[in-house]
């Protein structure tokens, strides 16, 4: 959570947040490490790491199959899988590490506790949905879907795209941001009056961490589920 000053830097005329870059890089490395170490020595009879990885792939494929027809999944499987582990690790990262610089600016936290991250992923999903729709149906059919069931519907359709974008991104942001914020507040409480509040607050903190870990998993799941729903909506011709 970034309550205090925000550390930013300029590069090529763009503003970057140090916390986001650092956290995302850590998650990036974690994801690569996860898939690297679990995919060694692949065999017909799977062992520990491979079992886990295959279970994860089956899990995300299962999420996608819930809304996209099996024969059309194709590359979306990879997208859903990567998205799920990236978001899950992002959500959990802030629960374990919340590192601040001496001036109070956080540099390691959940990347998903910043709306810019979640909205980026949300936008990416909706762009992918548009692309998939055009790729499968062609420009004409794809954009005609906005005029169905009647032409006036186009207003609602376009508005819906916008709300999809916002709700998809802000839902996960809200949950993770509030989780981290509450963790910070509980920690402040613990530190406020010495040992007495510590005894009360530490179990509370642990309980909330556990709950947040659960919420982080749920939110990653929900994000992938909704992504597949939005993609599948663009893959079919509306009646």
């Amino acid at each position: 959570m970034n309550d205090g000053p925000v550390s930013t830097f300029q590069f090529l005329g763009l503003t970057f947040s140090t916390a986001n870059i650092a956290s995302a890089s850590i998650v990036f490395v974690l994801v690569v490490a996860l898939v690297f170490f679990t995919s060694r020595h692949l065999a017909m009879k799977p062992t520990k790491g491979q079992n886990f990885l295959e279970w994860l792939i089956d899990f995300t494929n299962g999420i996608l199959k819930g809304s996209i027809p099996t024969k059309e999944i194709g590359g979306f499987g990879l997208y859903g899988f990567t998205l799920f582990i990236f978001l899950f690790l992002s959500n959990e990262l802030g629960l374990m590490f919340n590192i601040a610089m001496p001036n109070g600016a956080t540099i390691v936290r959940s990347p998903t506790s910043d709306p810019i991250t979640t909205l980026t992923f949300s936008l990416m999903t909706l762009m992918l949905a548009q692309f998939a729709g055009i790729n499968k149906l062609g420009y004409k059919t794809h954009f005609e879907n906005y005029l169905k069931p009647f032409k006036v519907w186009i207003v609602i359709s376009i508005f819906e795209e916008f709300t999809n974008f916002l709700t998809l991104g802000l839902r996960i942001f809200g949950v993770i941001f509030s989780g981290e914020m509450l963790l910070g507040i509980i920690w402040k409480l613990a530190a406020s009056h010495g040992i007495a509040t510590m005894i009360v607050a530490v179990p509370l903190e642990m309980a909330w961490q556990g709950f947040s870990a659960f919420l982080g998993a749920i939110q990653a799941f929900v994000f992938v589920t909704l992504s597949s729903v939005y993609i599948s909506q663009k893959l079919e011709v509306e009646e």
Partner: protein
Amino acid sequence: MLSHLVVGAGLYFGDSIFYVITFLLLLWIVKVLAWKPVTKMMQDRADKISNDIDSAESSRNEAADLVQKRQTALANSRSEAQTIVNDAKTNGQQQREQIVTQAQTDAQTLKQNAQKDIEQERQDALVNARNDVADLSIEIASKIIQRELKADDQKALIDSYIEGLGKQHES
């Protein structure tokens, strides 16, 4: 707290671009490292399992066929054995009858031959005896004649003798 959300106060679009690039890179790395080989392995496994099921099915059918064939062969061999035994029995019967018939025929032939021989011998003996009697009678006659040769007596004697021979022969 939400100061960074205010547009202009530091909405860092740079992060967006960074995330997009990072994520695309991540997609590529995950694809190369894990996705392709693991999904390929999973597909291979699925194929292998379905192949195994198919081959198990086919070998089961094969086994069933073999059992069927074996049973047919067993039944065939049983009936064949039956046929062989029957043939042997029939052959034995025929041979036995043939042998008996042959033996009977042989015995018959032998008996007939023997009878023929006996008859022949009897005829020969009879002819011999007749010749002998004729010779003897001629001898006797010549001896008697040498003693007292009277034509009338002689004639009566020969006639009676011949008559006697004829009667004897007829009987």
